[in-house]
């Protein structure tokens, strides 16, 4: 009952004063109350941390399944549901159904199934995944695969408005979760493999009209970059920074898509996100740094103007998209209290930056197998690339061998968690390497524009340490840039983590286990095999005074491919063939939400 009242008050406030305060008044109230899970990351900072502690390190071993819900969809289930008051909102992969579920009796209050052009499916890079919804202002915001952004009445499921954010015929699609800040809903775009030019767009939540759009690459008027005021590691970027490191007008099909997660600091009024790979995986034909692909962006929420940038992988040669989440935390770095942004990049480096200025504080490998660069130069911010792993230097039509990490990255989109209690970051990681061979391709609008072949295999084959695991779940000290503990997992850990005040951390595995480990030591305290492999994000909420843990299982996504990569069978030369049974031997397709609680 009380929760309902809170929601009502929130709505009233938002109506009276839309956009006048920082963040979104109603949403911020909801996020402040740990009984809800009102945004993908639990809060604007993307910490995926919950203050709830009814379930804790002492009793988590007693966890039981409370209820389950089948989505009826077979494709890969990334992201996770929202909980607002007494209602849970679930989004499925294509066709992107939405279910509003009454938590009092688990009945379906309403459902929404968009009609989408099936031509969208084949232009989606790696399975038809979707990473969830946004809530604010009495509306549910649904970002469909076919790029339609839809506002639904949260009570009835009726459509309020719908706009088009891109053109699937030209290879644009969406997989990201939108985020509502103040009176705007933010969304990005996918399609880097199709030459789509990335952007972050802000639409007004009242009617879906465009407030601003900032491209990742292109002329300053498109990128909303100010030659003098926008900085890169403290220095003004200068004129035309989004075009002058590209050959000719290659920037027009430059990529730099924005399919990851977006976080926000209400005090600084800055929104943070990363951009993806420059189009065509063949680096030889696109000389230059290809700015601002592979870049961390800090943009002003009201105007979209870029405040600072940091390009992590200039001139990408390996498909190390920079789109992973930017977690905002206040921690001590080298003895000084700092407002930082922590980011675990596909390229295998864990970055800690001052989120006010964009100063680079720490850049260290979060997987010891990473070999494409020896280190990051802390003055210039540039990685020191190892010549023999440079696919550009090795050249077109030549195989560059044993590059770590593989194109999947040391970590992909699966978001990490931060516990202010332990001060540690909990990171789901991949542990794969690859051979990579660029070749020349012609660009045709709406057609994939890859231009490289790659084969992936367990990192142990390169490190020679005899290990065969394809993933790890690690605890990371972002101040020192060091791994605190690391749990090997048979397959990539492709599930978003959850840390709680109960001193426990949750994550899912591709075999389908939900696991709870001790936040300090990593000791496994609980596991349960859900109906399918987990690539969704674990979350928690409280209903009727009881804490619940929930996760979507449903194998798929690029993880499905990464899986097969480990299965080189007789040619892998590892001998440990037993460790490499096909994914089929562990799990099958199918989307199910499993909800856990302690016994009454």
């Amino acid at each position, binding site marked *: 009952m009380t929760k309902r009242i809170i929601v009502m008050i929130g709505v009233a406030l938002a109506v009276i004063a839309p956009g006048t305060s920082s963040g979104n008044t109603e949403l911020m109230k909801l996020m402040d109350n740990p009984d809800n899970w009102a945004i993908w990351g639990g809060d604007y900072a993307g910490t995926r941390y919950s203050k709830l502690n009814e379930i804790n390190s002492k009793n988590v071993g007693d966890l039981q399944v409370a209820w389950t819900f089948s989505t009826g969809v077979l494709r890969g289930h990334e992201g996770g549901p929202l909980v607002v008051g007494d209602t849970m909102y679930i989004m499925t992969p294509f066709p992107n159904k939405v279910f509003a579920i009454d938590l009092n009796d688990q009945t379906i209050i309403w459902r929404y199934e968009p009609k989408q052009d099936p031509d969208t499916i084949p232009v989606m890079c790696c399975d038809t995944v979707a990473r969830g919804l946004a809530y604010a202002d009495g509306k549910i915001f649904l970002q469909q695969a076919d790029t339609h952004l839809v506002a639904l009445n949260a009570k009835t499921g009726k459509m309020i408005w719908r706009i088009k954010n891109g053109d699937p015929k030209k290879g644009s699609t969406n997989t990201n979760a939108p985020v509502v800040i103040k009176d705007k809903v933010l969304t990005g775009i996918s399609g880097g493999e199709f030459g789509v030019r990335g952007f972050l767009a802000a639409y007004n939540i009242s009617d879906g009209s465009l407030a601003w759009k900032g491209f990742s690459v292109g002329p300053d008027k498109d990128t909303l970059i100010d030659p003098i005021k926008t900085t890169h590691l403290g220095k003004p970027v200068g004129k035309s920074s989004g075009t002058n490191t590209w050959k000719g007008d290659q920037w027009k099909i430059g990529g730099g898509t924005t399919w990851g997660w977006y976080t926000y600091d209400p005090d600084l009024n800055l929104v943070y996100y990363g951009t993806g790979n420059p189009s065509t995986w063949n680096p030889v034909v696109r000389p230059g740094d290809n700015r601002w692909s592979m870049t961390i962006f800090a943009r002003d929420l009201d105007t979209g103007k870029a405040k600072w940038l940091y390009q992590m992988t200039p001139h990408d040669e390996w498909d190390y998209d920079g789109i992973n989440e930017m977690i905002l935390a206040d921690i001590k770095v080298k003895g000084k209290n700092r407002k930082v942004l922590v980011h675990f990049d596909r390229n295998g480096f864990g970055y800690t930056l001052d989120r006010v200025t964009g100063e680079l504080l720490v850049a260290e490998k979060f997987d010891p197998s990473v070999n494409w660069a020896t280190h990051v130069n802390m003055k210039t911010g540039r990685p020191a690339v190892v010549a023999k792993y440079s696919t550009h230097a090795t050249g077109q039509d030549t195989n560059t061998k044993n590059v770590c990490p593989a194109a999947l990255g040391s970590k992909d989109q699966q978001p990490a968690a931060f516990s202010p209690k332990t001060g540690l970051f909990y990171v789901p990681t991949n542990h794969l390497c690859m051979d990579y061979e660029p070749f020349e391709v012609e660009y*045709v609008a709406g057609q994939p524009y890859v231009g490289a072949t790659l084969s992936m295999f367990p990192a142990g084959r390169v490190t020679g340490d005899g290990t065969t695991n394809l993933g790890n779940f690690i605890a990371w000290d972002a101040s020192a840039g060091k791994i605190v503990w690391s749990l090997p997992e048979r397959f990539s850990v492709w599930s978003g983590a959850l840390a709680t005040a109960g001193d426990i951390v949750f994550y899912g595995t591709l075999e389908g286990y939900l696991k709870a480990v001790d936040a300090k030591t990593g000791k496994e305290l609980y596991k349960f095999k859900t109906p399918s492999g987990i690539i969704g994000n674990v979350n928690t909420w409280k209903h009727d005074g009881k804490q619940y843990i929930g996760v979507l299982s449903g194998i798929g996504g690029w993880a499905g491919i990464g899986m*097969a990569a480990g299965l080189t069978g007789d040619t892998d030369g590892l001998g440990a063939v037993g460790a490499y049974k096909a994914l089929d031997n562990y799990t099958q397709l199918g989307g199910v939400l499993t909800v856990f609680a302690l016994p009454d």
Partner: protein
Amino acid sequence: MILVATAILLFACAADSTEEKLSAQVVDGAPESTAKEKAAGMADAGQDEKSTDSASALYSVECGQVNDAGEPFCYLDRDTYIGWRTFHGFCHRCHAQDAVGSTFAPNLLDRIQGFDFDAFVDRTANGFTGQVGVMPPWKDNPNVSKRYKELFAYLKARSDGALPRGRPKKKP
């Protein structure tokens, strides 16, 4: 030990019926521009096939090789190698490395057994929606539409069991 595998296919016939099939589809109401592109693609394919004469080896695989690092690999003829490369540039993101299949697109090794070249070109060029999902059409992508023959050779080599998993090399 060096294992050598070859397979023979009559390409002259294949080309003819392909042409029939494609022109039939144009009548079915494909827009003019696609029809033109199709024609261009066909001319291309026709040329390739002429150069292989009426009957020739579909693929040639020499396995049992060992590289400097002691890892085994196989040599492929140029065309089959290009097929491998094209597959791992455009198809592997769904059908997975070595065509073994993923959670969203099938293993092609069993399926390709029942295919002749025509049927393969039809499936690949035009795409289709089946029980598993959506196979995209490739006829408008020159990087693939010029390589049907090479792709088919690669997939047959895999499917016949002549080429094991892993990264092959082009025969020098």
